[in-house]
């Protein structure tokens, strides 16, 4: 009576159901396969569209010196902007995360976490508009002050940009965008510190800061590192905010506040692509492929780091 073949009272229903089970399993498998294929597709299409740029004679690439000479300033700008962003946002984000997890009163903390999550959801074009209309003019005052007073530092050599649309401004906007990403994850990590360890530290007579240094920070280190890397990934790939804010000339320079700024890969694609044709398109796709590789490496470096540090901590 439980057999699939023999006719019993249940057969009319079961005949269909024994098909339904493998069918559903197959459906989920098919969905998974679509994802695999999509990624294979991404890789394949990007490579095939980028290939003509790789093989093209160097004078046909924009700039006239070949693909590497074209890509290098962009890669430099991408890394510089992301580094600036993280230099600003990582410490702040960790501070915010600590504030939420260990300093703010509980209800306030909840409210703040909502606000921080919201900050993460604000579209980048909105950040871009804010950056160019509001932030850049404000910062330009600071830049001219910097150029006047600490101009001996190569970073602030000037002459200061009047519009404020410099790589440093782009870095600040990216910092604002990456901050919620980093702090949201760090907060989770800090909140997971075992209560017992915290209380043990406090019972030893530690001040709150000592407790955080003894119990919270060591526990959360790997989590914070991966959160920061995630932020880095976002900063590297961010397009519109940079495209709007940055006034780029394509120079490789560490001067952060002048009118000569390197562009970033993503922003460059967004700015050039709508009008690009022929080999230009291939060149841009090649730069997109380079960006893909960079973010990939960053993401997996983060993963490796986390895996290693969590292993060495032995927990």
């Amino acid at each position, binding site marked *: *009576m*439980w*057999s*699939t*073949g*023999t006719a019993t009272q*249940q057969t009319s*229903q*079961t005949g269909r*159901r*024994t098909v339904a089970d493998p069918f559903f399993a197959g459906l989920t498998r098919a969905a998974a396969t679509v994802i695999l294929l999509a990624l294979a597709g991404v890789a394949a299409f990007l490579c095939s569209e980028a290939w003509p740029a790789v093989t093209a004679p160097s004078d046909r690439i924009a700039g006239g010196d070949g693909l590497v000479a074209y890509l290098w300033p962009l890669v430099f700008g991408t890394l510089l902007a992301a580094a600036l962003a993280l230099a600003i946002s990582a410490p702040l984000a960790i501070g915010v995360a600590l504030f939420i997890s260990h300093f703010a009163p509980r209800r306030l903390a909840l409210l703040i976490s909502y606000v921080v999550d919201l900050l993460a959801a604000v579209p980048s074009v909105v950040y871009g508009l804010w950056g160019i209309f509001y932030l850049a003019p404000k910062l330009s005052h600071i830049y001219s002050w910097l150029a006047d007073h600490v101009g001996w530092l190569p970073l602030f050599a000037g002459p200061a940009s009047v519009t404020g649309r410099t790589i440093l401004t782009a870095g600040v906007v990216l910092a604002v965008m990456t901050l919620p990403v980093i702090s949201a994850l760090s907060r989770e990590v800090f909140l997971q510190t075992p209560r017992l360890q915290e209380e043990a530290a406090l019972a030893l007579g530690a001040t709150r800061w000592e407790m955080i240094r003894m119990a919270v920070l060591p526990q959360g280190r790997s989590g914070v590192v991966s959160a920061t890397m995630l932020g880095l990934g976002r900063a590297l790939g961010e397009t519109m905010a940079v495209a709007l804010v940055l006034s780029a000339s394509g120079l490789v320079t560490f001067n952060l506040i002048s009118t000569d700024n390197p562009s970033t890969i993503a922003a460059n694609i967004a700015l050039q692509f709508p009008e690009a044709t022929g080999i230009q398109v291939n060149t841009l796709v090649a730069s997109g492929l380079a960006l893909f590789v960079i973010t990939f490496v960053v993401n997996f470096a983060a993963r490796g780091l986390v895996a290693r540090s969590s292993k060495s901590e032995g927990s």
Partner: protein
Amino acid sequence: MAKTIDVSDLDIYYGSFKAVEDVTLTMASRSVTALIGPSGCGKSSFLRSLNRMHEVIPGARVEGKVIMDGRGLYDVDVDPVLVRRDIGMVFQRPNPFPTMSIADNVLAGKRLNGKRMNRAEAAEIVERALVSANLWNEVKDRLRKPGASLSGGQQQRLCIARALAVEPQVLLMDEPCSALDPISTTAIEDLIHTLKERYTIVIVTHNMQQAARVSDTTAFFNLAGAGRPGHLIESGSTPKIFSTPDNPATEAYISGRFG
């Protein structure tokens, strides 16, 4: 209605690990069989192999024969899902579906199997199952409330009602009272007493008094050591096992001198 289950030469595996070895046992119809033994000896594994729930775990499999009503449960053309409709199961921790009301929980076995019922039919099934599970009087005014809103003991009886609504022949219970207070435990034991009129019942328990109170037959499982498979040491009528067991290990376990 109730059926006898014959198990012969049953081995139970988790992947390459053999958890239970060479069990031969008959569970008579319209009676209660209690499975007792120390933790890890394979009582749950054995019970779960009786309605093919065992193979839900990845890598798990059995070798040997389980025969009910002249048919092998593990014959190649047998659909395990249909076996489970004939052999119901109640778990250690009550597990009502949290998204469903009390009534829907009882009907879950029918509804989830795609059976269409009209209202009167459904109401009748709900009432019959809840009455059988001795829960009707307590919940008849709040059938639309979530199943999770009941007390632990009530939830467990709800799970029994849920199993009964599928109209099984056999009811398997894995430590059904271990998460419950003494009063709920008594309620369930009383219920087992009435249910055995109509069903074959197999119950796993760690409570010797409970085994003695509710069962007709007792089977004692033991294992030789950690990492070794569990064995059926002996089985027989409950009074005999509890008064004059053949095997000294059984006596040691029952009288609490185990280990």
